[in-house]
């Protein structure tokens, strides 16, 4: 498998940085009360999102979870899309109907998750099944957290995909915590990759903070899927550097663990790789960072000026053709 080109390596850096800068802007907006609802961070996990999604090709389909901001940016959604979602504006991909990263269409290569964890696994198996029935050679990739692997849907979806030998890659993002529940209370398994044995599929663990290692491992899994060899369970070991959402001060997380993982920051590590390989100097990266910040600021400003959806649009889009009215008939008749 060929190593990414110099240009690809720089693109990966840009995506990692965009992930982080955009999220920092969202924190800023959240603190100003401009983000509607909660804000779920991916700080420290950017390499897992970007490295896995970057291994896909045009036409492949991805099912991201709420911490996979980097993945949706790889798939071509813009900072404006993400900002509009978080600020619940009319211009957001879901038209204000759903929050955070809950958006996407098969045409744009992204399937929206629902909040019930594990649910995407059988659905993404179905994406792969549907594609196979249409004789499309695409790969479906989705994510599951350490907590989500405890659900029945995860098991049922992966088991079905394995039996059917579907082209599915399931990235088990082991960030140590499911809200306040640590890994050891989630499973007695040694690691998440071990679960693959139960399905008769390969399982592999990769350092989720090393973006190139993640990319290479994801490439292998994608290649297996594309070659008709069935699903892979790829465990990315990483760490959730913030609470479940911004409201959560994560008092339950040992500070020494946080410090240990802070020293393994994926962006800093990758910046060192780029410098060592002579691909980009600190100044080069600073220039890229500045450009990204400028763009994110401009996008945020534009989204802030954009309208909320019209209240009546709440009634639209439940069915292909409207089937029922929201108001009681007596009210309709007399008004």
């Amino acid at each position, binding site marked *: 498998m060929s190593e990414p080109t110099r240009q690809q390596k720089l693109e990966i850096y840009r995506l990692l940085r965009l992930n982080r800068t955009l999220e920092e802007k969202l924190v800023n907006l959240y603190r100003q009360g401009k983000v509607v609802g909660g804000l779920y961070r991916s700080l420290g996990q950017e390499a897992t999102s970007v490295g896995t999604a970057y291994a896909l090709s045009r036409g492949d389909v991805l099912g991201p979870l709420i911490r996979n901001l980097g993945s949706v940016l790889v798939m071509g959604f813009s900072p404006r899309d993400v900002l509009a979602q978080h600020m619940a504006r009319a211009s957001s991909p879901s038209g204000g109907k759903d929050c955070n990263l809950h958006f996407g269409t098969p045409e744009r290569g992204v399937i929206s998750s629902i909040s019930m964890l594990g649910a995407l696994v059988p659905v993404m*198996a179905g994406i792969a099944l549907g594609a196979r029935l249409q004789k499309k050679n695409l790969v479906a990739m989705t994510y599951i957290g350490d907590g989500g692997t405890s659900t029945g849907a995860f098991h049922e979806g992966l088991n079905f995909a394995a039996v059917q030998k579907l082209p599915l890659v399931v990235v088990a993002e082991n960030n140590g915590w499911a809200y306040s529940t640590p890994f050891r209370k989630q499973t007695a398994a040694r690691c998440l990759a071990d679960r693959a044995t139960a399905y008769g599929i390969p399982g592999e663990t990769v350092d989720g903070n090393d973006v190139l290692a993640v990319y290479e491992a994801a490439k292998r899994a994608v290649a297996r899927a594309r070659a008709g060899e069935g699903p892979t369970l790829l465990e990315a070991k990483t760490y959730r550097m913030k609470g479940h959402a911004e409201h959560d001060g994560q008092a339950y997380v040992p500070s020494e663990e946080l410090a240990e993982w802070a020293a393994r920051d994926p962006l800093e590590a990758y910046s060192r790789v780029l410098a060592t390989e002579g691909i980009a100097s600190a100044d080069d990266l600073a220039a890229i960072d500045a450009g990204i910040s400028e763009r994110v600021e401009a996008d945020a400003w534009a989204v802030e000026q954009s309208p909320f959806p019209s209240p009546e649009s709440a009634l639209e889009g439940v069915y292909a053709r409207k089937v029922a009215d929201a108001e009681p008939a007596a009210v309709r008749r007399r008004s």
Partner: protein
Amino acid sequence: MSETAYVDAIREALFDEMERDERVFVIGEDIGVYGGAFKVTDGLLERFGEHRVIDTPVSETAIVGAAVGAAMMGMRPVAEMQFADFASCAFDMITNFAAKSRYRTGVGVPLVVRGPSGGGVHGGPFHSQNPEAYFAHTPGLKVVQPSTAYDAKGLLKSAIRDEDPVIFFEHKFLYRRVKEILPPGDWTVPIGKAAVRREGRDLSILTYGAMVWTALDAATTLESEGIDAEVVDLRTLFPLDEETIVASVAKTNKAMVLHEATRTGGIGAEIAAVLSERCFEYLDGPLLRITAPDTPVPFSPPLEEFFLPNAEKVCRAARALAGY
């Protein structure tokens, strides 16, 4: 020309739609080689092959989940629940994934989840349920239950062609008990339209599924007593055909709702609310509900017989209502 049973009408609909549209496929437990627990899919594997007749693990979440994903890709899956009771195991996929997808993301999920519901065959608490109200209460779903072979075929074809997810309940008591001569050719029965099965002047019995036959039996008895009952077969439980319901009650001025499902929060309660909103001025008596009581479906024959509505219970209620 020979008669077609309800179960065979469903198979014909699947067969015809799979012939007509290569996007249509079926997925479920024991539906291929075995032909389905009730033989609904018998013969489909031989004709269409294992790619379009997919035997799955015992895994309702995977069955409906895979159907959701395939539907998003533009396929037209028909997922079988071996018994409608087991839709509970796929509840999340149906009510949260399939039902809300179009609204949240603009991505339609044109799938059908079908399976046998209902009692009267001594199936016990987990093979006899009528879970339609759960799904009728979920925006984004359509809910259908045919009472005749003609409707079973025509409504299933409409369900498969529909752009939105349709939950299709087949009453297992009717599978081999009702039959009729079906016309040839490609015809459908529209979703969202009720049918008046018997015209009457004195009161309206609003019902669906196997209870349509119970209502017709009761109406025959009532006629001999001088009570002229109208029987409306709802056919679709969401969206309700309010116009047909209202027209019937505006004519008879008295209404009772009959269903095999349990009472509280059932379809009958919804219809009572519709009639209260739209027919208040027309009503000359209380809206009555004839339903199963609020218990699980019991197993032993005398218990189940006591539990299920029947013609006698309908007649008793109708006499009381006619007396107003």
